[in-house]
């Protein structure tokens, strides 16, 4: 019975910090609006000089994809640095040892923090989606089946993203710092998952390369399913691939947690 309040208390740490800082929330709202307006204007402007369809994407599909990609970045943007609760900071200050001394395992604590962060981000993304849908900036999914496949694919995509972020944080146990690796990851994720531009516009070699990496599973697959660029009939293998990444990364990160625990020393050993 005590597990649920414990989960809740851990998961709500970052969202609570955000709610207690109105300027941050105002900032997020203003930035989302401006970014969305700019992205819509950019893609509509680009399509105005070209044909109605490019790389298999119509203007409406491209705008929907791009806007959803902007909204999806909210799922990843929460700041744990200000609260000094990143792995890198704990390694720097030596407080990482407390993660291993608490009744909650570090693996569980990390997962619960991430769950709270991503649910809070999802609330922002969902609110933004509702507004965009109401004003006609994004199209609704083609069918109930497509909506269901999108929801499942988004869940798997966020799961993959969680493990990738965890892996980068785990790097700190060996390198002490990971700020550069984290920045590389964010740029790689932006580029290879379709945040900057839908992957369908990229050259074939680029699309083939990204198929071997986990990044396209985080966003390109769910968004392509949503806009209908991946037909519902073809969604199965893509979902299976996402699930495959989840399993693989879960095994790897679990193994790394184990190895990391062996490296942590308390009070000089």
């Amino acid at each position, binding site marked *: 019975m005590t597990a649920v309040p414990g989960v809740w208390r851990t998961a709500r740490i970052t969202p609570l910090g955000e709610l207690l*800082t109105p*300027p*941050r929330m105002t*900032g*997020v709202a203003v*930035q989302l609006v*401006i*970014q969305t*307006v*700019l992205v819509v*204007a*950019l893609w509509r*402007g*680009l*399509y105005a*000089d*070209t044909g109605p369809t*490019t*790389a298999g994407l119509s203007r409406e599909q491209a705008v929907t994809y791009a806007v959803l990609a902007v909204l999806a970045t909210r799922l990843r943007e929460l*700041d744990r*640095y*200000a609260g000094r609760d990143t792995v890198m900071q704990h390694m720097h200050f030596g407080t990482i040892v407390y993660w291993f001394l608490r009744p909650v395992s570090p693996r569980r604590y990390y997962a619960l923090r991430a769950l709270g962060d991503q649910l809070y981000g999802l609330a922002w993304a969902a609110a933004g989606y509702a507004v965009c849908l109401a004003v006609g900036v994004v199209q609704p999914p083609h069918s109930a089946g497509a909506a269901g496949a999108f929801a499942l694919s988004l869940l798997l995509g966020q799961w993959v993203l969680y493990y990738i972020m965890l892996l980068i944080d785990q790097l700190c146990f060996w*390198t*002490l*710092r*990971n*700020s*550069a*690796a984290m*920045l*590389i990851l964010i*740029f*790689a994720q*932006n*580029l290879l998952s379709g945040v*900057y*531009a839908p992957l369908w*516009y*990229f*050259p074939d070699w*680029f699309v083939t390369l990204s198929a071997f990496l986990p990044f396209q599973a985080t966003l390109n697959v769910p968004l392509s399913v949503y806009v209908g660029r991946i037909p519902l009939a073809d969604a199965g293998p893509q979902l299976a691939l996402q699930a495959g990444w989840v399993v693989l990364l879960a095994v790897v990160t679990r193994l790394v947690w184990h190895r990391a625990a062996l490296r942590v020393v308390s009070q000089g050993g």
Partner: protein
Amino acid sequence: MDHRSAPWNAVRVAWRITKLNFRAQLEYRAEFLLMIAIGAIWQVSVIVFATVLLTRFSGMGGWDSADVLLIAAMRMMAHGLFVLFLGRMHALAYRVQEGVIDAFLLRPMPVHRQVQLSFFPTNAIGDLTVAVALFIGALVRSSQEWTAGRIAFLIAGVLGGMLVEAALFTAMGSASLRYPAAQYWSRWLEELLGTFGSYPLNVLPKALSWLLTFGLPLAFVAYFPAGVLTGHGSALGVPMWLAAASPLIGLGLYLLSRLLWSWSLKHYTGVNG
């Protein structure tokens, strides 16, 4: 101290601190190499994005690919120089949180200079490497005749772009002294500059391109100087003289931002009140 040698001494001290900072960065070898990579990867991603747009869409707002490349190259070079010389304002909110600014106020060196000398920006090496490559590529592909006057304006345009970016982040840094949430805006601003700073703004509706000219002076970073150089002066949406004055506007904005910094620093109250 002899007052005539004071500026020279300041340069010497700054150089010595920079050398020490560089050695400090080498302490974490993997982080050092990754930081160089990050600069390169970020800039390469801008190039890839630009290439994709130019390949898939027939021209951007009437600009051919060589001219768009010049905007991207000027923006990237300006950004690389900004990161190298004036870019330490990004993480200022964290320095405020750590109470480091309070210590800076006690030392016999201007706080702004101490912030700039607080660490060596390793990622600038990667930024500038790719920027130089793109810059050479853009100049080779350009059909313009590069007279001495044009080259002088090109250099002035890049330096002006650097100062516009420096002005924006100095203003953000000034806000960080009082509002920790300014960090959020700073990160977003960097993304915005990277995404919309490298393309012709006439692709956007007039209201938005106006906003990115007079609301947030992004157009002065590279779009206007490149427009003047490539003969798009009449289609920039502003009078030609204003576009041509971009380097001076950059200088003016930077001086204004430094005044804002000085004012903000006077009103700074540390974490201990």
